[in-house]
């Protein structure tokens, strides 16, 4: 990290020197942001996923998206990847004979593909018109088509390949998961978590979901434990951890009430890694898996965000417009000396 920053600083100093400002501007590295305390997200546990794709259908319905076909008969919604019309997809990992679930060799596994709601999202940094913003309270990465100019820089920037553009329309929009924020006001939460029959996808505060993920990683594979479903609240987590329900951590009110849907299940053979805890500075969607994450399509990412690197460069060069103004001043002074009023551009001498 330090080496990287030092190198960055050197590189910027070089640029500054070339630009000619004598690189007096101090280079302040912009740190990667963290998940906001009230950040909302999902916990996807691949060992609990049965591949029923109820979440894919629910997502389509909640976001009013049309089906997409990849088979000849065009009977079912069968997208092969997320798209401008598919914000959530369960993909399948296959190996050899595919005998054992969640086994890397001769096994199979599922993986959810949807927006990770990064703590420091590249798409938000990239968007020139603030059409992609991160909600300062709940951290949802929100899209506003009324501002979007359709440049697709967010598409190119995302390390997870999430925002997608609708190329088949003259008025195409960017499509991506927004955690069903349009349903929150009615007390509903993310449709994928709401319908998930096994609790493989849970909705909740990222801080709560992270504790639950760590609880699972600490369990002995093959033992039996209690799994929650739907919306995991702080109180339920405390019960799962066998702790008294602490005070002072108020849940956002207004979520709809649900009956207890907990069930007993066998503990899977987890990779000891909560994907999204550290990746890119953290993401609000967290993942657990039995198969190494890279095999199930989750990229290996550094603990810092490229948005931080990019903004460090931009603000070192253009922060407060100090450097451009200094350079302009110097250029104007020199040009005034070398250009006489009679010297119309390109004219005779």
């Amino acid at each position, binding site marked *: 990290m330090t080496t990287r920053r030092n*190198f960055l600083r050197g590189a910027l100093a070089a640029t500054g020197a070339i630009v000619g400002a004598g690189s007096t501007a101090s280079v302040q590295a912009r740190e990667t942001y963290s998940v906001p305390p009230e950040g909302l997200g999902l916990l996807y546990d691949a060992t609990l996923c049965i591949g029923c794709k109820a979440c894919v259908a629910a997502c389509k319905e909640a976001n009013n998206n049309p089906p997409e076909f990849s088979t000849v008969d065009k009977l079912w919604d069968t997208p*092969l990847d997320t798209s401008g019309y598919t914000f959530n997809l369960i993909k399948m990992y296959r190996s050899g004979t595919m005998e054992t679930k969640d086994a890397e060799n001769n096994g199979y596994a599922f993986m959810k593909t949807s927006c990770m709601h990064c703590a420091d999202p590249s798409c938000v940094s990239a968007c020139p018109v603030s059409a992609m913003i991160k909600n300062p309270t709940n951290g949802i990465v929100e899209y506003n088509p*009324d501002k979007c100019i359709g440049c697709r820089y967010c598409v190119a920037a995302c390390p997870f390949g999430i925002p997608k553009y609708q190329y088949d329309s003259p008025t195409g929009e960017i499509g991506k998961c927004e955690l069903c924020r349009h349903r929150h006001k009615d007390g509903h939460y993310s449709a994928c978590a709401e319908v998930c029959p096994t609790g493989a996808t849970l909705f909740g505060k990222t801080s709560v979901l992270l504790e639950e993920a760590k609880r699972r990683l600490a369990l002995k594979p093959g033992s039996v434990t209690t799994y929650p479903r739907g919306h995991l609240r702080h109180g339920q987590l405390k019960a799962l951890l066998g702790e008294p329900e602490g005070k002072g951590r108020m849940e956002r009110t207004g979520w709809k009430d649900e009956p207890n849907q907990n069930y007993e299940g066998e503990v899977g053979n987890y990779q000891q890694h909560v994907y999204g805890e550290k990746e890119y500075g953290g993401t609000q969607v967290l993942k657990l898996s039995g198969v190494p994450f890279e095999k199930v*399509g989750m990229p290996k990412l550094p603990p810092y965000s490229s948005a931080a690197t*990019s903004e460090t460069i931009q603000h070192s060069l*253009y922060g407060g417009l100090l450097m451009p103004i200094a350079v302009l001043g110097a250029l104007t002074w*020199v040009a005034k000396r070398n250009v006489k009023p009679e010297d*119309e551009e390109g004219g*005779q001498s």
Partner: protein
Amino acid sequence: MSTHSSSHVHAKPAPVGGPLFNAVTLISGVLILTMAVILLVRFVYGLGSVTALNDGYPWGIWIAVDVVIGSAFACGGFSVAMLVYIFNKGEYHPLVRPALLASLLGYTLAGVGVIFDLGRWWNVWNMFWPGSVNPNSVMFEVAVCITAYIMVMWIEFAPTFFEKFGMDNAKRKLSKFMFAIIALGTLLPMMHQSSLGTLLVVMGEQVHPLWQTPTLPALYLLSAITMGYAVVLFESCLASAAYRRSIEMHLLTPLAKVMLGMLAAFLILRLGDLVVRGALPRAFGLSLEAVFFWLEMLCFIAPFFVIGSAANRRNPAKLFVAGILLMLGGALLRLNGFLIAYQPVIGVETSGVNFSYFPTLPELLVTVGMFAIEVFAYIVITRRFPVLPREEVKPA
């Protein structure tokens, strides 16, 4: 009359004259019409109807070639103006106006070309709307800077029109603050040409390590200035041949030396960066990226062999070749970063998803059409407006 000294006596620019209808303008016209038809389809049916863009490759040649490479090719005006007015090399003065014209056309078209690629172009005003702008966005900086520079260049070039239409008063008034316009016209391309490189930084791991580095802004700026001189060499040779004028060798020979100096600075930074980051080993191996890296390197290094010696720099054919090589090198640096080295996120390897991009014919024809507009406008303007230095003696 004189700017910096009477030691530089230059021929006044004058219209070349001659017919506007010839084989070149006719072909250009056909290409421009073809482009117009394709764009009509694009705006009625969407980007997917004419381009090969897909969920893995959101940017194609309309961005990488028309905008990123196109605007770098249009750096001649900036590079030469910097030499003349900032480094006070008045002897290069006759090169300013033709170089500026090419830049003006190149940038204006790059700016217009962006609109073709914008999926929601009617919202583009948000780019300049205080309630919408995002100063953290590299693209915001690029867009604002390029827009400002296009306007600055039209002002810089305005005396040409004033002369043509006899607006002496306007010309005199403008000349009083031309120095400020020139200063701004030097600063703005420095800002956005470097930022065009910074555009790639936020893409992080998706860009191959041979092209993903925090030195991108410096690399893009240095190469853009170098390309600016290369374009001037190329253009001067071409214009001289096409209009049967004598080549300004007394200017191009020393200019080529300046260009090699900039090129050397670029190469030192480029290779030094690869070594420091430990990315150089990635250039050795059989991959598309490695092949394109060496192609790019070849184009950047070859000019030293072509015009490295003073004798060779007096040979117009060699200057022409070196100019083309450098333009190719700079173009490859950009094409590589934005397309060849861009690796989309695929997800689960065994899910059968694989992305590829190769431009469609209509997509290519739009790019060709954009260059055709440039050629067409260059011919019309140089034949009818005072841009190129007046020829004292018409060569046979």
